[in-house]
C-alpha cells in the first residue's frame, strides 16, 4: 500500500470529476478528515481543469507519502502543453487567460500544504503538491 500510485488521464471535462473523485478516495483511505478531503478534491479539480484548458491532455497521479512518521498525500499533475512562461503572474489572484476567474492555481496552492510548479515553454508543466495529515 505504501506509495502506491493511482493515475487519472485527463482528456475531457468528465475526467476532471474522475480525477478529483480518485484523489478524495485516496485521501479518505489515508485517514484525512472530511474538510481536508474537500480541500484535496477541490485542489485536484482546479489543477486537472488547468491541464484540460491549457494542455488538452495530461495525467494526475496521487500517492501516499511518509516523512518523519507523518503521513500525507502527494498529487502530481503533468502535461506536455505550452508551458507557463511567467509562473509569478499565474500565481497572482485574479490572473486568467481563459474563462476562469484566475483562482485556479493560487486557490489550489492555498488548499494544499506544499506546492511546486516546474514548467518549460513548449515542453510542458509539472505541478507537485502535498498535504500532510494533522
Amino acid at each position: 500500500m505504501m506509495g502506491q500510485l493511482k493515475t487519472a488521464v485527463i482528456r475531457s471535462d468528465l475526467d476532471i470529476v474522475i480525477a478529483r473523485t480518485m484523489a478524495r478516495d485516496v485521501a479518505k483511505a489515508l485517514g484525512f478528515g472530511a474538510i481536508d478531503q474537500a480541500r484535496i478534491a477541490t485542489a485536484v479539480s482546479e489543477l486537472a481543469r488547468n491541464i484540460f484548458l491549457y494542455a488538452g491532455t495530461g495525467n494526475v497521479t496521487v500517492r501516499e507519502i511518509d516523512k518523519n512518521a507523518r503521513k500525507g498525500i502527494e498529487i502530481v499533475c503533468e502535461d506536455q502543453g505550452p508551458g507557463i512562461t511567467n509562473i509569478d503572474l499565474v500565481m497572482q489572484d485574479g490572473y486568467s487567460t481563459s474563462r476562469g476567474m484566475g483562482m485556479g492555481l493560487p486557490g489550489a496552492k492555498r488548499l494544499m500544504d506544499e506546492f511546486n510548479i516546474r514548467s518549460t515553454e513548449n515542453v510542458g508543466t509539472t505541478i507537485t503538491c502535498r498535504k500532510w495529515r494533522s
Partner: protein
Amino acid sequence: MDSLRIPILKIGDILIASIQVALHDASAVQFKDDLLQKIHDTRAKGVIIDLTALDVVDSFIGRLIADITAMAGLMGTRVVLTGLQPAVAITLVELGLELPRVLTALNLEKGLIMMQRLTEESDDGSA
C-alpha cells in the same frame, strides 16, 4: 455526448433546482442555460439552487453560480443558494470565492422562507 440535465421544479412563483450529482463543466453550463430559459418561460420571481448533496464546489462551479445570480438578477429574478456543506463553505473561502453577491440560506426550508420574503418585498415595490 449528451450532458446530464438537472431537473428544475416549479412551485408557485419559485423555481427549485437541487443538484444531486457532481457536475462536469458541460453539464454545469447546460444547467445555466436551462435555468435562465425556464425563468423566462415561467416568469419565476425567484430561484433556489440547493447544493446539499455536493461535496466539492470548485472555482468553475462557484463562478457559474455567481454568473447565474447576476444573469437572473438582470431578468428580475432573485437567486438563493442553500445547503452548502461546511467543507464546501471552507474550501470556497480558501479558494478566494466568497460569492459576496449571492444570497444564501442554511437549508432549503430557510431558503424558501427567505425567498417568500424577498418576492413579497418586490411585489410591494412594484405596486
